[in-house]
């Protein structure tokens, strides 16, 4: 596939005061990502990977999903995942049973959930206060129109490599994807997780009742997790595609490009 740069188009590089918006100011010690964004990014990464591994491990003890309030091996599942189980009373079609890993998986899942939630709250609170969301993630009104969106989606689907100045700002599809993950999928995955807790829903029964029941909450928790994993895979692919070294450098040290690239 021939990889080309997209044609010149307008990106809102200058979106008010702040870091990471003005590549021309190479003499100023400005950074692509603030320290807090970088720290919370990697803490969330750590927490999410731990949640993913332990969540997968817990699912292995009952890889069947239901809708409504209740479900067990005596009731018909909504769907099954074709994997072996760590419990011998779950019919899987496999002739063997995996070792039980639920003890430490559950401990680590909830500890990671706390890291995820507390880090996320810090990120959202500071991001709201210092204009991070408005400046870096909220797309310009002019971008959220069918023509602009279609153009951006087309560039993604044609695998056009981003232009160097795009290392300083997110494009509209990217902004919408991040906003969806931060403000829709993450609250949903936390909510559906808590809706499975018998103690939590004893205090707030509405949290599970409006989801249609405890097994519905579990199924939705799994579904939202799948969407988050899909985001993660695309995110990693795009980092590698856009330039692994420069994107990783930006999220670790904060610098977006080598000095000679900026010149």
């Amino acid at each position: 596939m021939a990889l080309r740069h997209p044609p010149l188009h307008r990106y809102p590089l200058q979106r008010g005061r702040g870091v990471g918006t003005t590549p021309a100011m190479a003499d100023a010690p400005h950074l692509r990502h603030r320290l807090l964004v970088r720290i919370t990014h990697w803490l969330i990464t750590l927490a999410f990977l731990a949640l993913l591994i332990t969540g997968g491990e817990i699912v292995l003890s009952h890889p069947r999903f239901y809708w409504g309030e209740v479900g067990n091996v005596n009731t018909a599942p909504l769907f099954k995942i074709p994997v072996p189980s760590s419990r011998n009373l779950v019919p899987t079609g496999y002739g063997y049973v995996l070792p039980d890993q639920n003890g430490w998986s559950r401990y680590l899942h909830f500890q990671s959930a706390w890291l995820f939630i507390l880090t996320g709250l810090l990120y959202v609170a500071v991001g709201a206060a210092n204009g991070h969301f408005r400046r870096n993630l909220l797309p310009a009104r002019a971008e959220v129109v069918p023509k602009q969106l279609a153009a951006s989606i087309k560039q993604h689907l044609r695998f056009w490599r981003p232009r160097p100045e795009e290392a300083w700002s997110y494009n509209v599809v990217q902004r919408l994807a991040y906003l969806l993950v931060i403000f829709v999928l993450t609250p949903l995955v936390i909510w559906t997780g808590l809706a499975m807790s018998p103690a939590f829903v004893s205090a707030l029964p509405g949290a599970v009742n409006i989801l249609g029941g405890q097994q519905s909450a579990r199924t939705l928790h799994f579904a939202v997790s799948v969407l988050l994993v899909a985001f993660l895979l695309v995110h990693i692919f795009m980092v590698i595609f856009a330039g692994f070294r420069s994107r990783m450098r930006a999220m670790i040290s904060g610098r977006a490009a080598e000095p000679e690239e900026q010149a």
Partner: protein
Amino acid sequence: MSKLSRRAWIASGVAVAAGGAGLAVAAKLAGRYGLVPPDSGGVYGPGETLTYAVQRLLTGHSLAREFSRSQISKAPFANEVAPLGDDFQRFQKGAFADWRLVVDGLVAQPASFSLADIHSFPRSSHVTMIQCEEGWSYIAEWIGAPLSHLLGVVGAQPQARYVVYRSIQPDWWESMDMADALHPQTLLTYAMNDGDLPVGFGGPLRIRVSRQLGYKSVKYITHLTVTDNLKQFGKGLGSASPEGGYAWYAGI
């Protein structure tokens, strides 16, 4: 270092120091108000303590969700238990007439109760869901005597903080705090739906702890001990669950 980043570093330092001090104060308060679980040591201690403390503060006297009788599961799942030993089978042959529940520890009158004694206590029931930590669940009507009533009969002392409960199955024991022990939905369960509690579901006597996962609702209960200190039981982690790698608190 520019002025801005120096200011940022100082602000970060102050924030970290304040956060650390806040955590230390929070830990001390949590200990004082009984919000630290017995398995709070080890690498998962911070997460466990946060979960237990926050859920205890959030739940208070909240009741587990109750359902209508029409929602009782037609096909509940008993789950498997380790093979029941000779002792159990001897009791079973005698229709559990000789089954005893021993209550000791911090009580005015240590006692031993037959199933008939427990049947004579005020009867309570609720239709609630039991959830396994694995993810499956069913709804049943649980019928029995409130544990709080029995604790009143034996005169549990004011310094009591936990109730340790044991199964006839060796090495199967748990404990709960007084918030759950005195909770109206915590029952010494001897019947389920329309009949006696089947052996597979824990008959003749099962503790039902409605706001926690199924593994806290231990089957074949024979012994309760009221205590103010869990350190003296087993490895001091509160129950057999942490010794087997599972959390003591199972509200989530």
